């Protein structure tokens, strides 16, 4: 016990080790989340499309991501004869690397993040731009027509939407006066308002740009299945394909996390400054109980005896967790991560919803919207924010001068 204790103290006292441990935790948990995001997407799409989705692997298809991952691991890794081998091997790794690295600066809760650097936002923009190389190089090095077209499309798309998305973020930057992600949430806390209410246009632009940057429907041109078969990753197979797949879904989580942090108050609960809504802090308990009831309901519908037992067991687990969470110290500890997670899930659900609803834009239409609508709008938003901010600051400065002078 004492050895564990001293090890714990050592880790806490060594910043590098602490960061490493955090990275391991975040990487492990995120990989799992990404895998189950695919499951969630399939289930939600199925729910919207009058079908069941994965049902065969495990109870209600819960083991489907595991099966998919294993299958992809065991598949042959094919390198096309005319491919540029090194780049072909390197490209998917770039994509995944860029997607996961961004998490280093995302604050999941007020006290849980890998690092808080004072250029956090710039770091995110820089790293996520690097991810484009994964797509371009992958498409180009395949030495094949469809991937090349897909890669060309995606490079044009990502570059143009990054401009609009980046400008939308600058609006927040002006309000928060900081590039640090933690600071931005703290400012929202002290201002008593989420930035989505001060920057509604910026928020909308960022959401649209985020969908475009993650290559999701209705902007999924680089991998438009019906036109380019699979776009830039047509020639990839096995685990290299899985890497691209993982990168895409990780990117979805990334942009959701950024949107939640910058616009939706990060780890803050809704209306954090309103004391009357303090009862909202019991939401985690209710959520767990609700999940338990839902699982029980699912389980009772199941015709397989073993599955019924499993679901009842799972529901009981939820209730036990709810009881555990009901302890005030635990409840306070998980507040931040709960609200952050809940907001991200809502965002991800919306991503899936778009996919079920919209047809796909055509390449030139996409560019038109990007350059003729989104960028001018983002620019106007930026200028308006800057002007308003200037007058607001001037007003306060005058008040401060008056205060000191008296």
């Amino acid at each position: 016990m004492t050895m564990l204790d001293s090890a714990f103290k050592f880790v806490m006292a060594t910043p590098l080790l602490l960061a490493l441990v955090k990275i391991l935790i975040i990487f492990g948990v995120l990989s799992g989340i990404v895998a189950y995001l695919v499951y969630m997407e399939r289930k939600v799409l199925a729910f919207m499309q009058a079908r069941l989705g994965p049902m065969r692997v495990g109870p209600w298809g819960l083991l489907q991501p595991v099966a998919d991952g294993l299958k992809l691991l065991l598949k042959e890794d094919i390198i096309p004869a005319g491919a540029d081998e090194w780049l072909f091997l390197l490209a998917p790794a770039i994509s995944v690397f860029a997607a996961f690295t961004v998490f280093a600066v995302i604050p999941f809760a007020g006290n849980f993040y890998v690092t808080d650097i004072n250029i956090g936002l710039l770091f995110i923009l820089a790293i996520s731009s690097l991810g484009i190389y994964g797509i371009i190089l992958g498409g180009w090095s395949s030495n094949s027509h469809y991937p090349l077209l897909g890669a060309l499309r995606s490079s044009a798309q990502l570059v143009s939407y990054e401009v609009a998305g980046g400008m939308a973020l600058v609006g927040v930057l002006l309000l928060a006066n900081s590039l640090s992600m933690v600071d931005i949430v703290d400012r929202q806390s002290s201002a008593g308002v989420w930035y989505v209410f001060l920057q509604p246009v910026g928020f909308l632009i960022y959401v649209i740009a985020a969908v475009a940057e993650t290559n999701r429907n209705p902007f999924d041109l680089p991998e438009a299945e019906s036109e380019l078969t699979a776009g830039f990753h047509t020639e990839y197979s096995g685990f290299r394909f899985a890497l691209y797949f993982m990168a895409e879904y990780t990117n979805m989580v990334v942009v959701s996390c950024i949107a939640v942090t910058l616009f939706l108050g990060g780890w803050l609960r809704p209306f954090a400054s309103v004391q009357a809504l303090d009862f909202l802090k019991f939401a985690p308990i209710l959520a767990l109980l609700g999940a338990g009831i839902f699982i029980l309901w699912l389980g009772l519908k199941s015709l397989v005896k073993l599955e019924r037992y499993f679901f009842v067991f799972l529901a009981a687990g939820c209730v036990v967790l709810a009881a555990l969470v009901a302890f005030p110290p635990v409840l306070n500890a998980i507040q931040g991560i709960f609200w952050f997670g809940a907001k991200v899930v809502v965002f991800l659900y919306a991503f899936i919803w778009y996919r079920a609803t919209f047809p796909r834009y055509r390449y030139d239409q996409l560019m038109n919207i990007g350059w003729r609508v989104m960028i001018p709008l983002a620019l106007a938003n930026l200028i308006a924010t800057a002007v308003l901010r200037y007058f607001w600051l001037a007003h306060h400065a005058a008040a401060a001068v008056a205060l000191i002078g008296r």
Partner: protein
Amino acid sequence: MPETTFLDANELVINMGPQHPATHGVLRVKLKLDGERVLGTECIIGYLHRGVEKIAENRTYAQFTPYVDRMDYVAAVTNGMGYVEAVEKLLGVEIPPRAQYTRMILAELQRIASHLLWLGTHALDIGAMTPVFYTFREREEVLKIFEEYCGARLTTHAFRIGGLQYDLYDGFERDVSKFCDYFLPKVDEYEQLLTKNRIWINRTRKIGVITAEEAIALSVTGPVLRGSGVKWDIRKAQPYEAYDKVEFDVPVGEHGDTYDRYVVRMAEMRQSVRIVRQCVERIAPGPIFGKVGKVLKPPAGEVYHSIEAPKGELGYYLVSDGTVNPYRVRVRPPSLINLQALDVMSRDHLVADIVAIIGTLDIVLGEVDR
């Protein structure tokens, strides 16, 4: 087609198909591209050629009936109907009203099923993945009625030369009426997803335009022709069965673009429901078979008979030499002839539009290649 492109860049030739998710089977389209712009297309067909017309010459008239189901396999009922009517015309047989109305009900249900399949796959090609599941759900109901009636869902072999093999099963009228009541709100549901959807309109308006003159010159038929504003429907122009006794409208478009063809087909599904309802009202007990002999031996001669299949004019040209086998059977498949319009329609469009245009032509490769 310009010989050289901008800055003398080489044009890119890519093969779309025969294995490609958007070519609806084994169509192969050679695309000449300048970047994403299409400079020219060339269709290469024949990957599904089975020599159906030649097979007919070695079969008796009755034996050949199931083969026609396998041409347009998503609209087998209408294919079969066209053939049996052509043979009946050759034999000079009248078929009783009960058989006529039954054929019309099943043929119109088949039109709905075929249009549903078109709508789902067309929307899927344009990137909307949900409609296909909804349309297949409703198509399933039609197929259930077929199955209940003749035991098969896809290649039905529903009719016989001279009438019907099976009389209607008990509750057929109830099932069909129930389907009609269930189906109309569903069409509104599809329209909610697509008709006023900005992206859908952007992707289909002014895409694949074909003028009325061009359409007629290319002898395009069916919804593709009507989308260009030509009011030509064989059911009205040369009525067969009892189509002259039922009321229905022929929806037409204005601009001849992909959107208009979409609107026309959606309206046609509603009209089909209207026809089916009238037929169900009028169907009365009676014989189901006309006067045909055990051995079909039509007199020497030839006949051309065409019907309005879901995809356009489906014609059968039969030549009889007085024996039990046809001397020659020639099929005029709407899919093949509509496909000729692809090059005209896709001029100066982008790659993504080619997919939309192939979808809007509503081709079935089994019928193109036969």
